[in-house]
C-alpha cells in the first residue's frame, strides 16, 4: 500500500495572500494527501513544533510579503534544534532568483515554486509531492529516544501500516496508563473540553497524550487534519503534552484502524493519560470503546429526547458530559439520562460501576465542572 503523505501548509507572518495556499490545500486533499492548514498569521515556531509532533513529511510555506528569508530561517533553526531537518521544506510565492539560491543552499529548502514560472503549476506541485519520498524512522530509534520528533514519526509509521513499527506496540499492555475516549456529535465542544482537561491533568503533573481523529474524504482519501488543535494551542510547547492528529482512512466507527496502535505508542513514550478524540460521530459509532479504558459521550442540553432514544451509543458509555450548560439548563437532560441509566440491565464499562454525569460550561474563565470531571475520570480510572 502506498504511503500517504502528511503535509503541513502555512502562511508566514502578516501576509494575507492566501489564494495560492488555499488552492494548493484543496488540490492536495483532492489528490489524496493529508493536509494541515491553520489559516493566516501563523508563527513559524508553532508551525515547526506542530510539524514535529505530527510527524509530517513536508512543510509547505507560502510567502508573498518579501519576508521569506526571515521566516524560512526561523523554521530551519527550530527544526535543526530538534533534529528534524529531514522534514522536507518547500516554499512558494514571490521569490527572486537570488533568494531561491539562498533558500536552497543555506536552509536546505527542497524546492521553491516561484509564482509565474512554468514550474509553479498544480501538475508540477503534484509531481513533486508524489515523487519525493516522505520521512521514515527506524522504529527502534523511538524506543531509545522518546523525543517528540521520534514519537511523531513513529506514529506516522503506524498510520502508514508499517509492520515493523506495529510489531513493537501490537501486544502492549500497560495497565498503569489510562486511556480515555471522548466522543459526541460535531459541534458539542469536544476539542475545547479536551483542551481544558489537559490543563487539569497537567496540574496533577500527569503527562498527557492526545490522538485526535479527523474524517478522510471518502472519494479522494485525503483529509484536512488538525482543526481540533486550535482549541488546544496553549499546550503546544508543553513538553509533557503530545498531540497527534490522524485521519480515519476508512476506519469504522469514528476512529482509524491504527488509532489503538497509536495509543500504545504514546504509552510506550511515557504518557500517563492518553485521550482519544473521535470524529463528530453519528448514532451508532462507539468503536473507540474497544481501545479506551473508559469512554465519555459529550452532549449539549438542547439535544432532543428522541435523539437520545435513537442513539445506540447512549447505552454503552462510561460517563456523560452535558456541555454548554450556559445555553440551556441541563437538568431535564440530566434527569432523563439518570432514568435511562437506571433502566440499564447491566453496565458494560470495564469498571462495572454506574456511569456518571457531569455538567460543564466553557464560557467563563473557570470553566465550571471541568475540575470535577477530571477528578471523576481519575477516580473511575482507579477502580478499573
Amino acid at each position, binding site marked *: 500500500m502506498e504511503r500517504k503523505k502528511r503535509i503541513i501548509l502555512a502562511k508566514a*507572518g*502578516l*501576509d*494575507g*495572500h*492566501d*489564494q495560492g495556499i*488555499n*488552492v494548493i490545500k*484543496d*488540490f492536495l486533499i483532492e489528490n489524496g494527501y493529508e493536509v494541515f*492548514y*491553520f*489559516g*493566516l498569521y501563523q*508563527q513559524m515556531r508553532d508551525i515547526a513544533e506542530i510539524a514535529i509532533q505530527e510527524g509530517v513529511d513536508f512543510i509547505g510555506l507560502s510567502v508573498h*510579503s*518579501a*519576508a521569506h528569508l*526571515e521566516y524560512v530561517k526561523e523554521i530551519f533553526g527550530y527544526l535543526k534544534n530538534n533534529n528534524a531537518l529531514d522534514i522536507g521544506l518547500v516554499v512558494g510565492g*514571490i*521569490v*527572486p*532568483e*537570488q533568494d531561491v539560491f539562498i533558500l536552497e543552499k543555506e536552509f536546505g529548502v527542497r524546492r521553491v515554486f*516561484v*509564482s*509565474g*514560472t*512554468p514550474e*509553479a*503549476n*498544480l*501538475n508540477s506541485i503534484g509531481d513533486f509531492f508524489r515523487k519525493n519520498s516522505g520521512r521514515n524512522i527506524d522504529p527502534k530509534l523511538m524506543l531509545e529516544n522518546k523525543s517528540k520528533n521520534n514519537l511523531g514519526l513513529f506514529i506516522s509509521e503506524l498510520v502508514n501500516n508499517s509492520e515493523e513499527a506495529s510489531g513493537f506496540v501490537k501486544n502492549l499492555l500497560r495497565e498503569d496508563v489510562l486511556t480515555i475516549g471522548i466522543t459526541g456529535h460535531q459541534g458539542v465542544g469536544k476539542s475545547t473540553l479536551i483542551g481544558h482537561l489537559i490543563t487539569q491533568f497537567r496540574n496533577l503533573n500527569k503527562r498527557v497524550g492526545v490522538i485526535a481523529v479527523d474524517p478522510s474524504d471518502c472519494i479522494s482519501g485525503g483529509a484536512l487534519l488538525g*482543526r481540533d488543535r486550535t482549541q488546544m494551542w496553549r499546550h503546544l510547547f508543553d513538553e509533557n503534552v503530545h498531540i497527534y492528529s490522524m485521519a480515519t482512512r476508512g476506519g469504522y466507527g469514528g476512529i482509524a484502524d491504527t488509532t489503538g496502535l497509536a495509543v500504545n505508542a504514546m504509552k510506550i513514550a511515557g504518557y500517563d493519560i492518553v485521550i482519544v478524540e473521535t470524529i463528530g460521530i453519528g448514532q451508532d459509532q462507539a468503536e473507540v470503546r474497544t481501545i479506551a479504558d473508559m469512554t465519555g459521550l459529550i452532549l449539549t442540553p438542547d439535544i432532543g429526547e428522541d435523539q437520545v432514544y435513537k442513539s445506540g451509543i447512549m447505552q454503552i458509555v462510561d460517563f456523560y458530559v452535558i456541555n454548554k450548560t450556559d445555553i440551556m439548563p441541563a437538568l431535564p437532560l440530566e434527569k432523563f439520562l439518570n432514568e435511562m441509566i437506571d433502566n440499564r440491565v447491566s453496565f458494560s464499562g470495564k469498571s462495572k460501576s454506574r456511569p456518571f454525569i457531569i455538567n460543564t460550561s466553557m464560557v467563563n474563565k473557570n470553566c465550571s465542572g471541568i475540575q470535577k470531571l477530571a477528578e471523576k475520570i481519575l477516580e473511575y480510572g482507579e477502580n478499573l
Partner: protein
Amino acid sequence: MDERNKNNKEKSFCKKPIDEFDYSLKLGDPGQYPYTRGIHLEMYKKQLWTMRQFAGFGSADDTNKRFKYLLEHGETGLSTAFDMPTLLGRDSDDLVYGKETGLCGVAIDTLADMEILFDGIDLNPPISTSMTINAPAIVLFAMYLVVAEKKGTDWKNLRGTIQNDILKEYIAQKEWIFPPEPSMRIIANIVEFCCKNVSQWYPISISGYHIREAGSTAVQELAFTLRDGIEYVEWAIRAGLKVDDFAPRFSFFFDSCENFFREIAKFRAARRMWARIMKERFHAKNEKSLQLRFHTQTSGLSLQATELENNDVRTTSQALSAILGGTQSLHTNSHDETLCLPTEEAVKIALRIQQIIAYEMDITGVVDPLGGAYWIENLTDELEKIAMHYIDIIDGMGGMLKAIEQGYPQREIRRSALERCKKIATGEKIIIGVNKFPAKEKQIIPVLKIDPEIRMKQVKRLNEVKQKRDNFKVKQCLEYISCVAVSKGNLMFSIIEAVKNYATIGEICLALEKVFGRYEEKI
C-alpha cells in the same frame, strides 16, 4: 476546447437585432443616466485620467524620494503602499511581526513618519493622495489630516482617497483587525466626518481588485464589489446620513485583467448597475450619487516571472481596457513586480505606458469608442445579468455581512481560483512563456533592495518619538479613544487628538481592540 475556438464561438452568437436595442434605456449619452458610456460628456477630452502609481517601501524617507521621482516623471497623483505591520495596525517594534517592517510597503508608526513621508510635497490640488489602508484606515487618515494642518493646507481643499473597504478584506485580501460590526461602524464614522469636514475627499474606495486577484471571475468581482457598495450605503444611512450627502463621495476600484473586451464591458456594466441601484434601491436624486467613479489597476495576477519584458505588453493591453472602459485613474504594474517591489527603472516604464497611450495614440478624443458594438453590448448585458443574480443571492442571505459570516463569497472565489489554476496546469488557459512557448532560461534581474537596517532605524526613530512626547497625555488620549469606542460617538476626533500627540498606530489600534475585540476567520 482551444481558447481561440472558444472565443470564435462566443463571437458568432452575438446577433441581436439592432432595433430591439433601446439606446436611451441601456446606454444613454456619456454623462447621462445610466452612465453606461461614461460619467462625463467630455471625459478625457477635458481631463485625462489621473496617473497614480502605487508606491511604498522601506522608511518614510525612502518612499518620499520615490514619490518625488514619480512626480518628476509626470505622475499626477500619489498612491501609498504601507508595510504589513502598518496594514495590520502594529508598530515596527512588534516582537513577533516587526521583522516585516518596511519590506513590502512603507513603515509608519507615528505622525513623525507621516511628516517625513509628505515632506516637501504640496498637498493642495492638483495633487491628490490615495492611501491603501483598511483596518487601521482611521489612524492613517487622521495622520494625513494633521500633516495637512501643520502644512497650513485647508482640509476642505484636500483631495484623495483612503481605501477603507473592510468587507473585501474579509472576502479576499485578508488583512483585518476588528470584527465586522465595529469595523463597519468605524467606516461610517469616517464617512460622516468627511461629509462635514473634508468634502473633497473620497472616504472609501470599494474594491473589486483584491477579489479578482484572489482568483475570482470578472462577474464575481463585479457582483461582490457592488454588493459591498450596497452594504456601505445601508450602514451610512443607518448611521443617520442622507444618501445624497455621502454617495457622491463613494469611489470604486477595479482590476483590469487579460480578457480585453470582457474587461471593458465589465467597467460599463458596473456604471450602469450602480446607477440603477442608487436610483431604484436608494432613491438617490443627486446625479453624482448615481455615477460610479473608479480607479483601475492592471492585473498583478496576470504577470509572470519569466521573460519579464512580456509583462509590459500585458500591462499595456490591460491599461487600454481600463481607458476604453472610462477609468478615472490608473495604476500600471511594473514588469518586475512578480519578483519584488518595483525598481525605479521598471516603474518608469510602467508610467510611460500610460503616457504613451494618453499622448501618442490619439484615443482620448472619443468617449466610449466601443459603445454600440454588438460584441461589447452583448458582454455588458451578460455580465450585468449574472452579477445581478449574485446580488440577489446575497440579498437573500440577508446582506454581505451575513454572506461573509457563512463564507459564501470566500467559497465562490476559492472555487474559481482552483478552476483557474487547473486550467493553467492543463494548458486550457494559455500563458505565453509559462505553459505555451515556455521560457528556457531562468532570469536573474537586479531587484529592489530594501535597506537591511530598516527595522533597526525605524525602531530607533520610534523610541526617540516616545521619549520626546508627553506620555501622560498619550495615555489620556488612548483611554479617551476606548471610551468613545464604547459609546456611540464618532471616533475620528479622539484619534486625531491621539495622533497629534504622537500616539503610535499600534497603541491606537490596541485601544480600539480592547473594546472591539479581534476578528478570527473560520477555516
